[in-house]
């Protein structure tokens, strides 16, 4: 066995990762994975990222259009406005797994490029390390906003966020995209949001945060859906947790609550969406279900088919099985469940993943997925990989795929 030629010279030492570690060091292995797998030859779109407004909340508040609310906001946070008016729940602070996953509590690293807003700097580092061609951003603190006890806050804060990301963030980096928040509890305000922002540079769709208690099939929303269908932009339902419902507050661990709550909200909304025939009413509206993972879909598809066939009189708008509608909608990958790979493969079949599934990282949250996670699945062929990593997103969002990728595969 050979010994090192200079035996007393120690090799390079790697640092311990902390909350302040630079993203490029934290994600260095994702870059290695990309190189090893040739991922840079794939067009990759990340359809769920959350480098966002948290540390920039006072900047967001400046876009509140009602002066009374705007000035009041800066009475929060010892006059800084930090976290003003947000109805965040303690759950979000549990994301670090009690300090074990440092980035789960938010990226605390110093800025590298101070000439751009911090989210742009952080996003560029992530995109470069993961090999992304585009990243679609969603808010963090606003994921609870549908439950805000002050109804007008959803309207005022979401408009401020939408303006901030469109006017202050997206112009710096063409790879950064956004699906904008719809103040869904007030249909007229949601319609106004679509009118105001459709066509804005970098806006690739609109978003309903799923943590809310309002049926998506209510008649008051039909004009909004019609408007979205006409716009050609997708409508996303972004899941989140809720530790305060009658069911979830029985769960004594974040693990339990997160596992159920993130799927339960989208189960309810998807069930209402399908059983009330919304895919038949708005056949061209592209609907996307975000951040619930995939395992719930195999259950729901069979469950709804089973009940539908016995009680078809309750869902007369449907012209086919609920599972047929499920396989026509879109889903984001993360957090991908793989402890039983046969079930994972079957789930990909249930949702027709080759054409309906979109890669998503959820960076920098604690349960993020790197592109290699999808690439390494043993049952996918290269065509499916290419579609899921980016080409499906290109179709849904109308993104142009650069010529360098068109010759691959």
């Amino acid at each position, binding site marked *: 066995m050979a010994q*090192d030629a200079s035996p*007393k010279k120690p*090799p390079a030492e*790697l640092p311990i990762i902390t909350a302040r570690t630079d993203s490029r060091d934290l994600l260095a292995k994702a870059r290695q994975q990309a190189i090893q797998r040739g991922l840079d030859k794939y067009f990759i779109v990340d359809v769920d990222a959350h480098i966002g407004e948290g540390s920039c909340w006072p900047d967001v508040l400046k876009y509140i259009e009602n002066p009374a609310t705007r000035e009041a906001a800066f009475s929060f946070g010892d006059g800084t406005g930090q976290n003003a008016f947000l109805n965040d729940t303690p759950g979000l602070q549990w994301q670090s797994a009690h300090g*074990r996953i440092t980035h789960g509590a938010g990226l605390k690293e110093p800025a590298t490029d101070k000439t751009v807003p911090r989210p742009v700097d952080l996003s560029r580092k992530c995109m470069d390390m993961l090999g992304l061609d585009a990243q679609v951003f969603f808010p963090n603190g606003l994921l609870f906003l549908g439950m805000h006890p002050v109804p007008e806050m959803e309207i005022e804060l979401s408009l401020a966020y939408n303006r901030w990301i469109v006017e202050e963030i997206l112009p710096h980096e063409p790879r950064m995209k956004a699906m904008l928040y719809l103040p869904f509890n007030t249909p007229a305000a949601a319609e106004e949001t679509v009118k105001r922002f459709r066509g804005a540079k970098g806006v690739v769709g609109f978003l309903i945060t799923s943590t809310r208690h309002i049926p998506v099939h209510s008649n008051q929303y039909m004009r909004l859906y019609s408007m979205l269908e006409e716009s050609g932009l997708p409508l996303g339902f972004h899941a989140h947790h809720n530790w305060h419902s009658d069911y979830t507050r029985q769960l004594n661990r974040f693990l339990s609550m997160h596992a159920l709550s993130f799927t339960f909200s989208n189960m309810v909304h998807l069930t209402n969406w399908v059983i009330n025939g919304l895919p038949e009413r708005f056949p061209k509206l592209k609907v996307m279900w975000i951040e619930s993972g995939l395992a719930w879909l195999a259950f729901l598809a069979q469950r709804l088919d089973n009940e539908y066939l016995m009680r078809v009189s309750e869902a007369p708008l449907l012209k086919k099985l609920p599972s047929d509608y499920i396989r026509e909608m879109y889903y984001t990958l993360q957090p991908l469940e793989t402890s039983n790979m046969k079930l994972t493969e079957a789930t990909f079949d249930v949702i027709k993943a080759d054409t309906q599934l979109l890669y998503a990282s959820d960076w920098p949250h604690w349960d993020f997925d790197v592109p290699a996670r999808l690439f390494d699945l043993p049952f996918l062929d290269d065509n499916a990989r290419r579609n899921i990593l980016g080409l499906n997103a290109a179709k849904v969002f109308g993104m142009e795929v650069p010529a360098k990728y068109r010759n691959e595969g």
Partner: protein
Amino acid sequence: MKELFVCNEGDIAEGGRKVVAEDGVEIGVFRVGGAIVAWRNHCPHQGGPVCQGRTMKRVEERLTDSKQSLGIHYVEGSLNVVCPWHGYEFDVRTGRHVGHDAMKLASVAVKNRDGAIYVVVS
């Protein structure tokens, strides 16, 4: 196979570690219970930099004789390393995931030559 010098034995305190990289191979070298152990810096979950994560004591849920919970507490003398990407948690002594024995870090042989620590890399 090649022996790679890491450091002198006294350079790693009890519960401490060094994570080193050479020619694309990354290895975490730990001292636990007086022994030196080494693991590849590659989490079996998604390939994260597991050896660069936090080291923490294992936790246990204590029960009364009648099986009532007394809550979650540290296990004194234990040492886990937590992958900083997703929180997968491994016993530093055995390299095994603390909740799933079948999942294990890749071990690296360690040689102590007159107080100098080497790891064997292929």
